[in-house]
């Protein structure tokens, strides 16, 4: 229905050969027709009986009907988390560790099921859920499990204490991974949680509730309340929440910062980005092209740390763009469950409309638009990999986060100019540097105002490595030893 038409794609080289469909089986996952809120260890209806439908963005098929949390449900969930807090935080760290290790192992066991589920509900390719999301989810729980009995060694003083009840609001782009980033460190440090998944991707969080059951986690330690923005706002505002963790848009992040003003709530915000991927003239072109593709087309570009601005040194611009376009023409867009698919569906009609509008603005402002030639499926939400050339720093597509498969190409002549352009943004989450020269990598990295810098690689994640942004990309870090601080009273 709402597929965006790619305007006048350049004539493409014919694909080298056709692929037969290679769909991952849907039968490994059993989605119930309806789900409740998970509060105090039980699935329950919303107090006002409201529900919403979650659909598969690649087909618009309704997957399930999910209870929609309101303010009263938020209160119930926070009360359950508060009741559970006393015992949970008093457990020896070694016992909390073993619960988290159990969860990590059960996620590993059920990872194929969860990967298929995530692909259905989110629209991202099975290749990514299977090889990136799920392994990282399990690893995150495994890593923080080990911290639970080692907090004295974490550098925050002896016997650091948890904060209490954590209210956590997560986005739809990596539903289960964002859940892991939020819940694993919170539980390891002895907090209890109320988590609100995004309204377009509630299912993997509800399956996680079942994993908590299998792991024997005490009731109330984890509460999952699917819902819309109003539930998130009620959670953030709840007077008995001690810690707010949010991943999402910068606009909502700022609203949360205002909401918690005057309270003692500890806050971490992981917000938008407009990452610069800087390619110097001595970079190996083929590797750089792969890195650029990974940087902006991984997860359809719906990644806060995406390398959405390509800064290429002028002397190699033509050669690089030619290689990049050739590579983009080989990306396979389509059925996310197909194991050969590189580009899946956009997560929602709303997001597709936003991407489409920003791309149209780019064209209207005079940037040159090129889209990879590919057929878009007739149902579902799709956007062809797109790049803009002739982009200046004043263009909207160089300034605003598009959160889609759209790359803006700018050029530079000197390293100084590259740094100045890379830093010319309200955001400061990620950046990439491509050069064979180690000292240049480090010199440039020193000058970049961004929280994660990838050199000769991009979009690498690991539970041991802290992640988070400078400037309006938010505050606080998730992951690694540093990620513990957000959940400790230090």
């Amino acid at each position, binding site marked *: 229905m709402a597929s965006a038409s790619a305007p006048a794609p350049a004539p493409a080289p014919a694909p080298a050969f056709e692929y037969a469909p290679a769909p991952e089986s849907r039968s490994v996952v059993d989605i119930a027709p309806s789900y409740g809120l998970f509060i105090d260890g039980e699935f329950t209806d919303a107090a006002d009986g409201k529900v919403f439908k979650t659909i598969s963005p690649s087909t618009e098929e309704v997957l399930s009907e999910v209870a929609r949390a309101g303010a009263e449900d938020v209160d119930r969930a926070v009360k359950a988390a508060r009741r559970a807090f006393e015992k949970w935080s008093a457990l020896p760290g*070694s016992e909390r*560790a*073993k619960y988290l*290790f159990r969860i990590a*192992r059960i996620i590993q066991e059920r990872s194929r099921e969860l990967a298929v589920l995530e692909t259905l509900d989110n629209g991202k390719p099975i290749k990514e859920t299977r090889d990136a999301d799920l392994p990282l989810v399990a*690893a995150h729980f*495994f*890593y923080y*499990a*080990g*911290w*639970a*009995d*080692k907090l004295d*060694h*974490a*550098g925050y003083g002896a016997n650091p204490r948890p904060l209490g009840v954590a209210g956590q609001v997560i986005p739809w782009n990596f539903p289960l991974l964002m859940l892991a980033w939020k819940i694993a460190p919170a539980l390891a440090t002895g907090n209890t949680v109320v988590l609100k998944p995004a309204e377009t991707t509630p299912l993997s969080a509800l399956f996680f509730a079942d994993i908590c059951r299998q792991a024997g986690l005490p009731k109330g330690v984890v509460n999952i309340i699917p819902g819309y923005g109003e539930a998130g706002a009620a959670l953030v505002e709840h007077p008995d929440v001690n810690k707010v963790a949010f991943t999402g848009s910068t606009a909502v992040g700022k609203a949360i910062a205002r909401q918690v003003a005057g309270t003692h709530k500890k806050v971490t915000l992981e917000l938008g980005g407009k990452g610069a991927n800087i390619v110097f003239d001595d970079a190996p072109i083929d590797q750089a092209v792969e890195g650029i593709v990974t940087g902006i087309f991984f997860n359809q570009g719906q990644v806060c740390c995406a390398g959405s601005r390509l800064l290429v040194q002028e002397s190699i611009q033509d050669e690089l763009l030619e290689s990049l376009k050739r590579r983009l023409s080989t990306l396979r867009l389509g059925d996310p469950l197909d194991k050969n698919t590189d580009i899946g569906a956009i997560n929602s009609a709303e997001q597709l409309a936003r991407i489409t509008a920003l791309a149209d603005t780019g064209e209207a402002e005079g940037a040159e638009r090129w889209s990879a030639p590919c057929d878009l499926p007739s149902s579902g939400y799709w956007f062809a990999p797109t790049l803009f050339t002739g982009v200046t720093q004043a263009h909207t597509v160089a300034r605003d986060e598009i959160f889609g498969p759209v790359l803006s190409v700018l050029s530079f002549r*000197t*390293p*100084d100019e590259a*740094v100045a352009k890379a830093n010319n943004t309200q955001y400061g989450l990620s950046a990439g540097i491509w050069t064979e*020269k*180690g*000292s*240049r990598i*480090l*010199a*440039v990295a*020193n*000058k970049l105002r961004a929280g994660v810098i990838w050199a000769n690689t991009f979009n690498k994640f690991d*539970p*041991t490595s802290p992640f988070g942004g400078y400037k309006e990309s938010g505050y606080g870090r998730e992951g*690694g*030893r540093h990620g513990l601080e957000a959940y400790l009273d230090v």
Partner: protein
Amino acid sequence: MSDRLTVLKTYKLYVGGKFPRSESGRVYEVTDSKDKWLANAPLSSRKDARDAVVAARKAFGAWSGATAYNRGQVLYRVAEMLEGRKSQFVHEVTHAEGLSKSKAADVVEAAIDRWVWYAGWTDKIAQIVGGANPVAGPFFNLSTPEPTGVVTVVAPQESSFLGLVSVIAPVIATGNTAVVIASEKSPLPALSLGEVLATSDLPGGVVNILTGRTREIAVPLASHQDVNAIDLTGADADLARDLEIAAADNLKRVLRPQPVDGTAADWSADPGTHRLTAFLEMKTVWHPTGTLGASGSAY
């Protein structure tokens, strides 16, 4: 109980992932705390010790090169496997140490949890003891711990299982490989642990377990030129001194018995990190951060 005659186990060494007898063909009698015969254990020779070093060295490259996450999962797998064989170890510890069944169960459970403790350390120790150094110059400077290599472990004599686990796990958690000399008097839990390690995804040769006369095995290992470190925990004062002198020949890293007089340590206490750091080397890398301008513009 029926009158059925039980099948007795032939206890064998654990070397290079296999279960050989001693090359010497010797065994010695192992008795319980009331001097009742339990089994015959291999009486390892100097040659067995050398073979174990070869196996440990061979395993070092892959094990130290495995990701810390991978090593953590393997150590956790050991805990999973032990949990399933808990009753066997409770039985063996009861006989070996003369403990009541419930006391022995406490000991075995603590040993399982100790594997979990060290499983969690594999990917965290570098974050505790390593880090960036703010040198006064335009340099990136990063210190990272690395395993020292092949470690000889003289396991505690009294605590045949919890003590044993407490000295093996920290050595291999960081990527070292180990040649372990089990408690001379109570070697059976150690030999059974080898059977658990063999089914826990631990690559062969990472842990090698020898039984016999502690001095006979430890002396050649302390002077072995391809051994990088030695943990003297199970050596008495005289032996510890002799071994430390021999170890000086190639400057092995030495972890002395704590305390030095050999009094029984409290293995149920918080283990801390000193057994991890004792067998680490610190590597520091310098790299210029350079200037930005291609023509020497100092940014």
